């Protein structure tokens, strides 16, 4: 089996798993209890929060554990105290993950938020000048006093484009607004320092960086409203007994990936080049979507091909990739990101995403490329 869908999820790092095990079997005490048996989990919780904070240049007090990226995004958008009044603006982009887009839509529907969408260019990049112009327009207009939240993802999950987050955050700050970034695809894969980026909030998910599923975090320097009422966990904002094993696993996986980040990036970039080189040498007509890519995130659109067919055929060869277009037997539904970058239909329908990770090899990259070439040549010759 060749797993090349690391943007969807990653293999749990074995060292992270080993660190988790004691908290599943022996050290199962509730970290909120005052007796001796809870000391080890309590210490582990504190250390994990510190390790995670160190990895992203934050203070431990600014890290809130969540169930993952979607919860972090929902919390940042729906429960941010500075802007939780009924009258407010949310600025986001048209290529965000659905966890952001649907949270924003929900705020519009239930809390009367005014929503503005920044359009990406043909490479999936958000132009900082568009944000500046919009904020300027809002400042000049009647909505001057409305609190504004800007949410733009750090790396696009479908096409891998890395956004100019520092620039966007700086502009946002100048206008007194709050900047959130969904960094689920970035954290643990490219250097991510919240202070250098200048973001107020950042979402991350452990299973995207070789940690366990069902755990993530939200970095926030802003006030947060309660997400879950109950106990005192997460400063009383998100009640519920902590999943120490998962939190420890997340911290271990992130720490390891951050220590090896340059090495991993070089390795992944190398195998990405091997795969692309093999495809470019074939006679296939295709485009690579996006620009300024996250290493390993390869969105390809093949002329007059069927992305869903290609994904299923690769699956039969035990190669796991994603598609950017799915067929409902009558029409091919192209993803909102592929639509947003304005790819011609003849290419858009033939879109797949290959996302390589640190465990992939050059040999696997060549096997993926050869399998794609074989399938598309066979179908094209019929």
């Amino acid at each position, binding site marked *: 089996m060749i797993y090349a869908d690391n943007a969807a999820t990653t293999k749990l790092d074995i060292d992270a798993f080993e660190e988790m095990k004691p908290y599943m079997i022996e050290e199962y005490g509730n970290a909120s209890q005052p007796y001796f048996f809870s000391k080890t989990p309590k210490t582990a919780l504190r250390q994990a929060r510190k390790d995670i904070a160190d990895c992203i240049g934050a203070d431990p007090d600014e890290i809130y554990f969540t169930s993952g990226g979607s919860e972090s995004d929902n919390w940042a958008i729906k429960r941010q105290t500075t802007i939780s009044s009924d009258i407010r603006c949310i600025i986001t982009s048209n290529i965000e993950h659905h966890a952001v887009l649907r949270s924003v839509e929900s705020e519009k529907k239930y809390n009367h938020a005014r929503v503005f969408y920044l359009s990406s260019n043909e490479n999936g990049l958000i132009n900082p000048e568009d944000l500046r112009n919009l904020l300027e327009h809002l400042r000049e207009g009647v909505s001057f006093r409305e609190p504004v939240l800007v949410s733009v993802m750090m790396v696009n999950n479908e096409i891998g484009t890395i956004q100019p987050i520092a620039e966007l955050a700086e502009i946002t700050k100048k206008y007194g607004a709050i900047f959130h970034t969904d960094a689920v695809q970035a954290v643990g894969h490219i250097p991510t320092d919240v202070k250098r980026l200048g973001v107020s909030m950042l979402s991350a998910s452990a299973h995207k960086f070789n940690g366990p599923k069902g755990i993530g975090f939200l970095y926030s320097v802003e006030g947060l409203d309660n997400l879950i009422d109950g106990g005192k966990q997460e400063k009383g904002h998100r009640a519920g007994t902590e999943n120490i094993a998962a939190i420890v696993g997340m911290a271990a996986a992130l720490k390891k990936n951050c220590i090896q980040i340059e090495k991993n990036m070089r390795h992944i970039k190398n195998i990405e080049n091997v795969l692309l080189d093999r495809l470019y040498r074939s006679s296939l007509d295709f485009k690579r979507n996006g620009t300024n890519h996250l290493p390993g995130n390869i969105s390809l659109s093949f002329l007059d091909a*069927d992305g869903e067919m290609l994904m299923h*055929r690769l699956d039969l060869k035990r190669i796991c990739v994603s598609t950017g277009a799915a*067929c*409902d037997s009558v029409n091919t539904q192209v993803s909102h990101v592929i639509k947003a970058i304005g790819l011609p239909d003849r290419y858009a329908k033939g879109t797949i995403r290959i996302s390589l990770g640190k465990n992939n090899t050059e040999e696997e990259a060549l096997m993926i490329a050869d399998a794609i070439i074989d399938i598309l040549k066979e*179908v094209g010759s*019929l």
Partner: protein
Amino acid sequence: METLCKYCGKTLSKDWIGLNKKLISKDIKKFACIDCLADDFDCTVDDLEIKIEEFKEEGCTLFL
């Protein structure tokens, strides 16, 4: 529409025709039975039967 396997002449079911369309092209006019398709794709018949079930669960109208 051709209702016999282009390789072995076996009578084709609707599911098999749907599978050909889904895994090769919606535009093809000649189809293979599930055994010949498995040979073509170098996979097992079980693999293809699982695919049929998945497509049905997704509500793909080619399999209704």
